[in-house]
């Protein structure tokens, strides 16, 4: 029953100014990524990822203040490498992925972007995500609210996402499945 340290504390370091080209590149990367996912161009999304990507979404838990953790260190909703992400995308490409046929209508609102330079030429980028998901014609919509901490690695033609940790804000998700990417 171990957990990671409390995750909803903001990075206290000073982010890059909004006028900094690195910040602008990072922000644009996230907005373009959201557009790619919302138009369900999953192959295009994979091209934004580094081959050694780690894509994780720990399970959040409700704990007493002072417990020292509010997510599970050893259990995620996602805990993916490139193989696993490729398989998920490949599955959506079959004729038999019923859960997204008809597809959800999604809109990813990406805000509160904070960019930090790391020592390795990479950028650490934090953002807020509100994902609106509508399925079918009569069902209530779902919302997923999350923070994301990403590592963007420079590449000759832009950046690649090398790591993403998704801090979801619910301990009990109110969406039928995670047949989508955050």
């Amino acid at each position, binding site marked *: 029953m171990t957990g990671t340290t409390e995750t909803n504390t903001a990075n206290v370091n000073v982010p890059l100014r909004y006028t900094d080209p690195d910040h602008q590149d990072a922000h644009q990367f996230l907005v373009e990524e959201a557009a790619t996912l919302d138009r369900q161009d999953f192959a295009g999304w994979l091209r934004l990822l580094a081959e050694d990507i780690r894509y994780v979404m720990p399970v959040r838990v409700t704990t007493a203040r002072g417990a020292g953790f509010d997510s599970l260190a050893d*259990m995620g909703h996602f805990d993916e490498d490139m193989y*696993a992400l490729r398989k998920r995308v490949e*599955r959506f490409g079959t004729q038999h992925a019923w859960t997204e046929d008809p597809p959800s209508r999604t809109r990813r609102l990406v805000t509160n972007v904070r960019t930090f330079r790391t020592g390795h030429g990479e950028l650490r980028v934090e953002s807020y995500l509100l994902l609106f998901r509508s399925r079918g014609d009569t069902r209530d919509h779902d919302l997923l609210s999350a923070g994301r901490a990403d590592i963007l690695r420079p590449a000759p033609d832009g950046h690649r996402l090398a790591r993403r940790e998704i801090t979801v804000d619910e301990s*009990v998700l109110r969406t039928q*499945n995670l047949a989508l990417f955050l």
Partner: protein
Amino acid sequence: MLDVAAVVADVRRGMIPAHVYNDPEIFALERDRLFSRAWVFLAHESEIPEPGDYVVRRVLADSFIVARDEDGTVRAMFNMCLHRGMQVCRAEMGNASHFRCPYHAWTYRNDGRLVGLPFHVDAYGGEDGFAKEGQSLLPAPALDVHQGLIFISLDPDAPPLRDHLGDFAFYLDLYARQSPAGLELRGPQRWRIKANWKIGAENFAGDSYHTPHTHASVVDIGLFREPKANKRKEGALYTAGPGAGTTYKLPPGDLTTRLRHVGYPDEMITRMRGAWTRAQRGLVENDGFMISAATLFPNLSLVHNWPKIDDSGTVVPFISLRQWQPVSANETEVLSWFAVDAAAPEPFKRDSYKAYVMCFGSSGMFEQDDVENWVSITDVAAGTMARRLNLNSRMGLTSAGKPLKPPLAGFSGPGTAYQGFGEFNQRHWLSMWGDHLLRPPPVHTSADMGAAR
């Protein structure tokens, strides 16, 4: 007005009135007659290994603190202060020596005993006004443990858990006791689906028929070890005591080669050989069947599967436990745990966890398609026309109600097994469901807390 006897009579014919999958009247009966009596899974001992460790779990609307006290005893205590009814613990998990009510600071030890009552003398005149001595949070009326799995019943007259499990323990232990160390659980992932709780329970109990179609996509992409989903029809379906489950037919081999086929390393196979009885080994070794999905009535399901976890085709098995926690007639909270033999080597645990996350749980590629189906069923089961439709659940029976083929002869496990497709298991599950719905609710007494003795 609901005619429950008629509903159950239809179910016993293998015809399911479709509205049972979204009917508030049925749900009220399930609450009062089924969940008020049945043994219900709450947690696993590995989730609370140390004194003071606790998790908070529910049986429908009833919240229980499942805690290990300072002596190591596992208890389940109704999470309601004896004074004004506040929940004394509002976290999901943690470690605590005491639970202090935020309202008036009544304080309970982690074994449930009331040890703090502010102004006891000033406010109550001491023991005469409120007899503090010997008071504790209401314990679950019955609690019992099997292979580390903690169950409670709201019926103080519930039979002993082991008696209840009966022949299903044989199969449960194939998942839960791969070595004397038993399972360790991680999680759970929790999410809510707009689906009736019975659909998942029935599906895991015996719906091998859905695999070739619902899960065609995971076969298409080569995720699953078994190359053709229609292999499913070669598996055996078994019913045993309060449980039922599905199996896969394995290629020819002995115990070792068949367990290697699904991805177990030799050191785990050695431990399984020692932990399992001759008959349990025989299920794999002689009969060639490997456990897959199963449900223990009412709402605990298990799954064992063996996908490919990397580009080189490494096959690794995983076990998951999941609970279909009813919220209402049309909503269920799924709690899904990853489970692994505690004695397994660390690299196996790592890989098995990866296999689990890819396949089952909130993002699992198998589970995604299941839930879409179940939500859709529930949605359309609410209406008037659903009350005019009895769904056919007679697969495997002739018109006269006889099995299309005889039970498997010489099957190593207890209970009754059939090879091939059939809805024997779902009917078995629904038959138990009907039994509960026809019984009057258990009689219980109310407890006066702290009244004059």
